């Protein structure tokens, strides 16, 4: 029924796929995509709300991004964005509006036509009001004009940087059908678990505790795609089972490091299995030491710099992450060329300097070699945060600080740190989402109410920092905005209110049969329309 994939789409696939690391030879990357086959992948969680427009998180995107599409997706090429439901976009010079030209002839999975009314509804009722991240980015959105079915104009009450909106497009602008959600309680709508979208795959079934099943959308707007017939997500919360399943060819993809780092060396040697480190740059995680400034010792910048001097970041990358990470110097990861600057004064590994600073700050070693005691709460989110907590305890002890580890499970940790402020140091793992304003500056901004997770609950309130953050939030000129964020990084480097230790993404383990892997910076959370299985 559908024609074979066009030469153009094959070439487009080639451009993306050849860059993946440690792939066995470039020969097969040039084969023509084969239509057909069911891709079976490992999923480690079953989110209670699967709607990516409401919950912009990786666990949700992993399944939902194949069904519900954003306005644009991240790519490695060009300006970093590829059109999806929007084909073109530009911002007004005064920052008060952003105009999207939408793709024509797109239909929802239930047959109804997609139009600008859906974008308007999603933006005003979902992204702005309900979405965890959208509430921050779209807070000044006041209206969306829809002069025709393929044009949507977002209008803001205050100047909003177009650069920010652009950076937010892949993760924050999933479009949901107005005709399904209008008039209902959006949060309780059954379409949040039985998704209806415009994407290359249709949602078919979710059997709790077992699997999700998606099938090809025959009316997808990118004709010829998707290549796969179906995708099955097997629910496998246990890492050992995932590794075994890949080896036994029962699944073809284990994403998000569900195969533990310690197993990667061994599993990479199995014939037919590939370890892919690329494809997650757009979802970089940061390993941080969060500091409670209410503690007198920690309010002193010399003590904070001393703690940063005590940490051997290279050792952490090599031992805790087994090399699968980068050392970090500040709040913006190296991958983000738009904003990153290396011109910062972040303290490197120098235990002697650490001891000198602590002496200078007035905290000499006591008779037992201890200067002062701290409570350290390593976050339970990843094995690496826990292990880094163990390392940090040693590193601090070496410079005379006695850190006692307090372990909590996830809700206990969130409550202790972000509501009760019952900590001195914690190990955190915030996510960087391609623009500092989305989920990073909130870690530095002063004056926030207690109870907001993953925000500045540290008692840190610096007027200079607050001013930089506020200014960047309303600077429309992209060049100027980038410059302000470089100043932000410099100030963060001097003051070290949070200590950034490492940047890490995830690792995918795939079978060779699966092609067009990791061809964009958010591959695992993108729509896999061009993924295919060789025979």
């Amino acid at each position: 029924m559908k024609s074979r994939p066009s030469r153009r789409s094959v070439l487009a696939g080639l451009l993306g796929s050849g860059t993946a690391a440690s792939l066995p030879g470039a020969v097969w990357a040039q084969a023509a995509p084969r239509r057909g086959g069911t891709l079976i992948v490992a999923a480690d969680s079953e989110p209670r709300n699967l709607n990516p427009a409401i919950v912009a998180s990786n666990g949700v995107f992993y399944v939902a991004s194949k069904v519900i599409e954003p306005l644009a997706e991240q790519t490695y090429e060009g300006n970093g964005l590829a059109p999806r439901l929007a084909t073109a976009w530009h911002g007004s010079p005064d920052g008060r509006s952003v105009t999207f030209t939408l793709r024509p002839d797109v239909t929802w999975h239930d047959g109804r036509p997609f139009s600008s009314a859906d974008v308007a509804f999603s933006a005003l009722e979902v992204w702005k009001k309900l979405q965890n991240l959208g509430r921050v980015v779209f807070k000044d959105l006041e209206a969306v004009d829809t002069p025709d079915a393929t044009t949507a104009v977002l209008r803001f009450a205050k100047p909003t940087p177009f650069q920010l909106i652009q950076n937010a497009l892949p993760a924050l602008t999933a479009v949901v059908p107005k005709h399904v959600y209008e008039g209902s309680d959006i949060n309780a709508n059954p379409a949040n678990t039985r998704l209806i979208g415009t994407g290359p795959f249709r949602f078919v079934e979710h059997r709790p505790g077992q699997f999700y099943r998606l099938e090809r959308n025959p009316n997808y707007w990118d004709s010829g795609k998707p290549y796969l017939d179906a995708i099955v997500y097997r629910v496998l919360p246990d890492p050992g089972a995932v590794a075994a399943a890949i080896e036994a060819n029962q699944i073809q993809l284990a994403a998000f490091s569900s195969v533990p780092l310690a197993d990667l060396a061994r599993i990479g040697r199995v014939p037919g299995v590939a370890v892919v480190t690329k494809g997650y740059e757009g979802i970089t995680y940061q390993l941080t030491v969060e500091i409670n400034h209410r503690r007198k010792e920690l309010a002193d910048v010399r003590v904070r710099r001393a703690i940063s001097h005590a940490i051997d970041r290279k050792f952490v990358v090599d031992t805790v992450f087994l090399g699968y990470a980068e050392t970090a110097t500040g709040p913006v990861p190296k991958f983000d060329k738009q904003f990153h600057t290396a011109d910062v004064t972040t303290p490197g590994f120098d235990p002697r300097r650490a001891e000198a600073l602590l002496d200078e700050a007035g905290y000499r070693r006591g008779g037992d070699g201890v200067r002062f005691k701290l409570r350290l709460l390593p976050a339970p989110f990843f094995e690496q945060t826990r292990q880094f907590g163990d390392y940090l305890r040693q590193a601090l002890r070496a410079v005379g600080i006695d850190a006692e580890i307090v372990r909590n499970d996830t809700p206990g940790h969130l409550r202790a740190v972000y509501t009760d402020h019952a900590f001195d140091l914690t190990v955190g793992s915030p996510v960087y989402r391609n623009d500092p304003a989305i989920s990073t500056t909130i870690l530095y901004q002063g004056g926030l109410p207690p109870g907001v997770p993953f925000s500045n609950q540290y008692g840190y309130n610096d007027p200079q920092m607050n001013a930089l953050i506020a200014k960047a939030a309303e600077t429309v000129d992209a060049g100027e905005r980038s410059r302000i964020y470089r100043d932000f990084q410099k100030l963060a480097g001097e003051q070290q209110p949070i200590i950034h230790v490492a940047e890490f993404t995830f690792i995918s383990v795939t079978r060779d049969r699966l092609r067009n892997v990791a061809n964009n910076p958010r591959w695992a959370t993108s729509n896999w329309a061009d993924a295919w299985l060789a025979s």
Partner: protein
Amino acid sequence: MRAANRFFSGGGIVGTMLVAGVAIAALLAPVVAPGDPLALIGRPLIEPFTDWRFPLGTDRLGRDVLAELLHGARATLIVGGAAMLATLIVGIVIGTLAGFIGGTVDEALMRLADAFQSVPTFILALAFVSIAGPSLTSVVIAVSLGAWTAPARVLRAEILSLRRREFVDAYRVLGMAPLHIAFREVLPNALPPVITLAAVIVANAILVEAALSFLGLGNPNSVTWGAMIAEGRAVFRSAPFLSAIPGVAIVVTVLGVNLLGDAANDAINARQAQV
């Protein structure tokens, strides 16, 4: 004499030696392996018996397995001992009150015991430690939550039978306060059967603590054998020794405690038979 003979039969000797061995290891830990056992001092994943500086090898982060093992012995014995004390104290108090006061107090306390026995005790322990936050205290309390019912019931049964004996009436006639009679005169005679439970309680405490540590709910500031097994699990395909060694240590310790307990029971039974 017969009691001593029964105690020092084959099982008793082996048990004593094993437990003494573990105790000596625990005491000598700071001598043989000074410093912090959790320090990252070596190259990760050195195999045992290959490097004389790390006789039993190193773990994923480069910690000395022998140091961890020896210091883990301390944690194990401390938890075992503390849990035994806590369990016995709670069990004895409740058992005495139930047996001596009787009536509705007895009914209520026995229903409470039923409740604690009907509930899956390990899950209760798990929930408690998870909620209270893992620490030595919370682990000890968690272990006692499941174990107190046994000594309580045994003691209650003993007291119920002793209550009817003449010497109790004699004390009452003399005007002694009931609680005084209960705790000062009746209790000491009722204790021996409860003491026989002590070894079982210690053995159970060690195993429960190991399981809690394995699930990540052990005391994070000290080394425990269960936590070592959990650490080793991540690399159990390439370095199974990391999980095997602490497990053997647990088996040896619990075996020693059980043998010791059996021998002590035999000895006490022999003595009671003499009486």
